[in-house]
């Protein structure tokens, strides 16, 4: 192995053509040696049945003729015949279930397998193979997203694997910037013949597309729960106004009449989080997803509040603040306090506070203007107009007060829009996240039906 390392070190310093020749020469030598070893081993098997050296693998049933090699001799590549490419993408992408023993135990496994196939095509200097493999991969992923684009699990699974594939392309590109955390062995596994930077861009674009689809998926699931759970369902007993919308215990996530509660929302968020973790989604990406989800929850809730008189009362303000605190509690529980999610709820929080503060004097007006920096003037005015007192002792907000507020805030330059844009998606980035996984240790589980791949 030392010899291999020396050779490779020498290799990298030669010009491309000589490099290819040298590696071919090396390959020929290696194969010849291997054949010698194999023919010897075949002769010996009859006599040395009981003796297996500690590092030797158990024979794989798919290739009875293969003499198992020691771990160290695998180079982390997978060989396949060109005509098997369709089968490869079919079994590994199109028909692969997002939940299974192999993919659950080793998150990102499909990505690693694809990359190992790519590595071999690169190693044997077959640019056609490299190109068709990449194209088929990208097209198959797009196909599966079209076919099952509304299934959260599928979309999340392929976002995670596409990102992992992208990280592999960078990590093993041979570019210094991406090799900082590589082991010596991993550096040996870098692509030797082709520069795939352009494909990296294509795959990055694909990942963005998948991310947007994922957000849409999650939004569709959450949508029916938001208004119910954040505004309508009442959990704080004794706080409701003249007409209580019903007091229920918060133990069940779906209350008796089949309505959603805050608990439903929290459970759904947990389910999303758990699935993304199981798929091996990058933690940085999970943070961005959560931030986006919280934005949607905040925006939908606020918009609803701005349009409904019955939501603008002191008690509703209380309820909203309680619900928000529960969401924050969830963030804390998942270690997501610094992902920016909480900040997206500021407008909603401030609206809730606005419902609760005094709204009479000039000092009150001053306080409100300072406090509601995340709300537009239009929004503040609307809330004040809609504000409904809970009992007969309280008065509605006076027109004069509202005018005072408007005067104080007239120097603001902001959009006159009342409602928040619920369709806005924060731009997503995929920070480089190299893996410490050693490619030569990867074996192909039987359940993936990829027996036509050969470990090299």
């Amino acid at each position, binding site marked *: 192995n030392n010899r291999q390392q020396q050779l490779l070190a020498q290799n990298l310093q030669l010009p491309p053509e000589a490099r290819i020749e040298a590696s071919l020469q090396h390959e020929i030598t290696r194969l010849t040696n291997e054949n010698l070893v194999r023919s010897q081993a075949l002769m010996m098997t009859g006599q040395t049945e009981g003796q297996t050296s500690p590092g030797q693998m158990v024979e794989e049933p798919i290739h009875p003729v293969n003499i198992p090699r020691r771990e160290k001799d695998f180079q982390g590549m997978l060989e396949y015949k060109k005509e098997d490419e369709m089968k490869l993408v079919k079994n590994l992408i199109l028909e692969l279930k997002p939940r299974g*023993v192999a993919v659950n135990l*080793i998150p990102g496994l499909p990505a690693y397998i694809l990359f190992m196939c790519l590595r071999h095509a690169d190693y044997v200097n077959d640019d056609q193979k490299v190109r068709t493999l990449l194209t088929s991969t990208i097209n198959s992923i797009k196909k599966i997203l079209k076919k099952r684009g509304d299934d959260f699990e599928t979309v999340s699974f392929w976002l995670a694997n596409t990102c992992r594939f992208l990280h592999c392309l960078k990590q093993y590109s041979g570019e210094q910037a991406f090799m900082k955390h590589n082991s010596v062995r991993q550096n040996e596994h870098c692509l030797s013949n082709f520069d795939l930077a352009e494909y990296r861009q294509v795959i990055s674009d694909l990942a963005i597309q998948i991310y947007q689809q994922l957000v849409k998926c999650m939004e569709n699931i959450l949508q029916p729960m938001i208004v119910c759970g954040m505004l309508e369902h009442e959990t704080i007993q004794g706080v409701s106004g003249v007409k209580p919308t019903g007091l229920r215990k918060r133990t069940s996530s779906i209350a008796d009449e089949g309505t959603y509660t805050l608990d439903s929302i*929290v459970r759904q968020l947990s389910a999303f989080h758990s699935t993304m973790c199981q798929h091996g989604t990058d933690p940085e990406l999970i943070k961005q997803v959560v931030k986006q989800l919280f934005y949607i929850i905040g925006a939908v809730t606020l918009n609803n509040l701005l349009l409904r008189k019955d939501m603008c009362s002191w008690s509703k303000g209380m309820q909203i603040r309680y619900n928000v605190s529960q969401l924050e509690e969830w963030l804390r529980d998942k270690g997501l306090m610094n992902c920016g999610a909480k900040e997206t709820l500021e407008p909603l929080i401030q609206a809730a506070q606005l419902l609760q503060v005094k709204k009479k004097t000039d000092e009150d007006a001053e306080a409100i203007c300072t406090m509601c920096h995340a709300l537009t003037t239009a929004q503040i005015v609307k809330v004040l107009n809609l504000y409904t007192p809970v009992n007969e002792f309280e008065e509605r907000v006076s027109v004069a007060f509202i005018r005072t507020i408007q005067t104080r805030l007239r120097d603001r330059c902001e959009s006159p829009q009342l409602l928040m844009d619920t369709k806005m998606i924060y731009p997503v980035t995929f920070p480089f996240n190299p893996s410490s996984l050693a490619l030569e240790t990867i074996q192909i589980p039987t359940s993936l039906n990829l027996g036509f791949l050969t470990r090299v």
Partner: protein
Amino acid sequence: MEFGEESSPALAFEKNAFELTVEDVYDISYVIGRDLLKISSTGEEVSDLQFRIVRVLEMFETLVNKYNLSVEELKMERDNLKAELDRIIKEGSPSSGHGAQQTGANQVVVDLNDPNRPRFTMQELKEVLQERNQLKAQLMVAQEEIQLYKSGILPQPEPAMADVDLDTPAAKEDSSSTINEKTTIGKLFSFRRK
């Protein structure tokens, strides 16, 4: 409020073996994979172990799947059989409003409303038949005697008028002795009386 508990994949480890589903097997796979990663982030030291575990869990998945399918199939079959049994029982006894009638071995069910139902014992039947036979024989003797007297073989009309009345034992005695003396047939049938 507990956030993680309900959806925690580790809960699968605490389930009863016979209640496992394939989804539980996948959760188990995830947890084990995560634990292996803690030991070796590169996978070098544990790779053989890791992929053997994958193989075992794949087999486990197959078994759990098969088991659950079999349970479902058996349940369906049991329900079908139950339904059929109920149906047959309903058809079997339409007239009687009672439930199942239990008849043991060598027993007969008798409908009490049937006019042709069996009513008499063997003993009763025997006695009646014997009596009939006796009466028949006596009748034949008497008829023969009448014939003989009519045809003039037997000259004395009086003995011919002998009583055949069985009910009076005294009369019987006299007439039987008279008949026995006068007729051959009487002699033949003298043993008749008990």
